[in-house]
């Protein structure tokens, strides 16, 4: 119980997908593959995500509409 930290090499695919597919710098312009197409990779998960968001809204999410905190 002394250490709750985990190393990233041990983390699940979920943790990686949550970042590598969802976040990171998005480029546009003279790029062969548009990011919109790449988003399809995550389509299966996205459908699930949106249904959960709806659920959260209905029961009153703890941080409704919270994005990045102002610094």
């Amino acid at each position, binding site marked *: 119980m002394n250490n709750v930290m985990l190393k990233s090499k041990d983390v699940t695919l979920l943790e990686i997908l949550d970042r590598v*597919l969802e976040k990171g710098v998005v480029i546009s312009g003279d790029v062969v593959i548009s990011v919109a197409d790449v988003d399809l990779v995550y389509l299966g998960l996205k459908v699930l995500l949106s249904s959960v968001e709806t659920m959260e809204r209905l029961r009153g999410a703890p941080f409704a509409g919270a994005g990045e905190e102002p610094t």
Partner: protein
Amino acid sequence: MEVPARDLIYLYCITKSKPHCDELPKTGIKTYSIYAQGIYAIVSKVSSGKFSEENLKKKIIDMSWVERNVRQHESVVEAIMEKTTVVPFKFASVFKTDKNVEKFLKEHNAEFKRTIADLKDAEEWGLKIYCNPGKLKALLEEENEMIRGKAREIVSAGKGKAYFLKKKRDEFIKNMLNEKISEYTQDSFERSKGMSLRAKINKILPKEVTEKKEDMVLNSVFLVNKKRITGFNGVLVNLKAKYFDKGLSFDCSGPWPPYNFCSICSNEGKHE
């Protein structure tokens, strides 16, 4: 340097100091760097067959293909991150030529330099909190005087009234459960944020995705100064102990490349 038409340039991340590109034995990927105006892009050549729009559309439904390639992307960025500050890119950021990458570096030069400066000496850490609602509910039923009072009323009421009272009590417990979860997650987020440079809340992920028995109740990320990692860890250890018997479990992961704190193309940070 011109590349043959069938090669595409896959961009992993951008750095300010010259990266150790050839030394990525763990990843098995041959990367090189493209330099322009004080910044480097870490790239590798990929075949247009693999990363063409058409092929990507076919491959994205194949989770084992996605996993292999996403992990590869991550391992390259992590290898570079060991030595220097990185601005990580999203999966499958692909250019036609080296020249185009160079042009891209020049066009967004100031933004990248500013982002690199912002991220210096900082690490991204993720905190996901899960809740076992049954455990928390049992605790509330045991400890909350109002709920216990309602239970007594139900016992002494007639059959019809008891049914009605039970429904009211269940509704009351459900609301209280949500209130408590909000209170606990907010407290956890605020305390962790107190040790961080920046903090963000991401979407709650469903069980189908998390493959956990418990519900995810907070999905948050923090940008933490490397010197304050011990303090940040200390806060998490305290939170974990504080909320253990309330049915909450804490899943912390890191250090990550700062995927959540580098979006140069969104509105965020544009006019900071």
